[in-house]
């Protein structure tokens, strides 16, 4: 019973830490997916007098990842019923060229202003439409999501630090006396600390298994999937290999750091 109690305190602390870390990863993944979705659906439209090679437009700014001409065929075909073919042919000749510029990331308002300046330098470009009004409000929302996720990360760091300090005090109390007694009988440092490290590693593995099982189940029953899909976000809540390694790594690192701090801070009491 005593032994289970000793294990439980560290397992619960480590589980809380890796659990909140994984929640942060999911939130961060959602923000990244949302940003990518925004970027995929966003483009700046430019109008040119003459036909321009898309490559030339891409070269105007490093933030432009691709450029594609927008076909005017559909607009003209709509007019066919209302206009004579001769007029349509004339219109075709006088129509400017439209290009959609895709960017390598969703730009900030200042990046967008810069891009506008860079595009204006090209004399071929007569008009630029960057949908800045709707862009700015969407970008503010994205910033809000990012700020929330950063606040969450700070919260995790604070909680983690508090839990680790609390655990360190409990462990110091629990293990110092045993280590001192072992030292009195000539046990070398590695032997005195072996129990501590074994306990730390076993507890880290148990906490990791619990966290992996919880998130695998959440992924299996697709928790929050419906809500995320409805706003166009498709993310994996838990990646068994990637996230699993991260969870085991974090739990093991924290518990080994904790054990090492106890060993370093140990003072013979006898």
């Amino acid at each position, binding site marked *: 019973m005593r032994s289970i109690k*000793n294990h439980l305190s560290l397992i619960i602390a480590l589980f809380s830490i890796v659990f909140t870390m994984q929640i942060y990863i999911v939130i961060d993944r959602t923000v990244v997916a949302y940003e990518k979705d925004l970027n995929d659906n966003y483009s700046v439209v430019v109008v040119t007098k003459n036909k321009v090679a898309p490559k030339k437009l891409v070269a105007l700014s490093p933030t432009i990842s691709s450029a594609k001409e927008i076909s005017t065929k559909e607009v003209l075909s709509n007019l066919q019923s209302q206009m004579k073919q001769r007029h349509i042919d004339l219109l075709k000749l006088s129509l400017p060229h439209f290009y959609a510029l895709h960017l390598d990331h969703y730009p900030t308002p200042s990046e967008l202003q810069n891009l506008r300046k860079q595009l204006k330098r090209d004399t071929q470009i007569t008009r630029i439409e960057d949908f800045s009004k709707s862009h700015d409000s969407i970008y503010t929302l994205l910033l809000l999501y990012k700020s929330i996720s950063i606040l969450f990360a700070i919260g995790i760091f604070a909680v983690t630090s508090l839990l680790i300090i609390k655990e360190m005090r409990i462990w110091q109390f629990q293990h110092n006396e045993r280590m001192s007694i072992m*030292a009195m009988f000539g046990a070398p*440092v590695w032997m005195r600390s072996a129990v501590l490290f074994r306990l730390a590693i076993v507890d880290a593995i148990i906490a990791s298994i619990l966290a992996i099982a919880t998130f695998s189940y959440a992924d299996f029953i697709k928790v929050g999937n419906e809500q995320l899909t409805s706003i166009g976000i498709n993310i994996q809540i838990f990646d068994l290999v990637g996230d699993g390694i991260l969870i085991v790594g974090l739990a093991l690192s924290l518990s080994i750091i904790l054990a090492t701090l106890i060993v370093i801070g140990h003072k013979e009491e006898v």
Partner: protein
Amino acid sequence: MDKVILAEELSLAYNSEETIISKANFSVASGDFVFITGASGSGKSTLLRSFYGALRPENGSLIVGGVEVNNISSSKLNFLRRHIGIVFQDYKLVKDWTIGKNVALPLIINGYAKDVSDIQVDKLLNHVKLSHKIEKYPQELSGGEQQRVAMARALAHNPILILADEPTGNLDDYSSRLIWNLLEGANTQLEATVVIVTHHIPEDLAVDYKHFNIEGGTVYEIN
């Protein structure tokens, strides 16, 4: 006879300030049974602590088991301690270990094989009349029983030197007698050198003993 403990001009102090023992000269030979007495706070326990390297000399020299303790390295200190058995007034048993594991501690540290260690633990617990409590934890035992366990632990690895700090200080007559018998047995049968810090020397001891007293920081032998 070989000297197990040799102190020359030995001075001990708390936190390098308050001198407790001043320029002590004495020796303990192999096979001696020694009492160290003195008033409370005279430095008896401090002197004993210096024998197992928990307190380093301020001045002078202290040699224990042929090893100079003054500037001893941690590996040499561990080696020295593996040949010493210590009994504390407050027992110092590991609370979350069973009695059996507590007694086996010096055997584990000295690298005994598990089967050899198990036999030795059984023998010793039988000797201190606690073999039926091998699976119990220290807090499930009375003070006298815990001190008997501590005694069994101190003898487990057949040490050359046994150091006991007020080993019967908190015990009833039955447990005290048992502890004295064990210490005498360790000296006469195992030929261990025994050094005991105490307020009171029992009158019915069956061994010849040496007696050092500490007064005003000075250690002197009483004949």
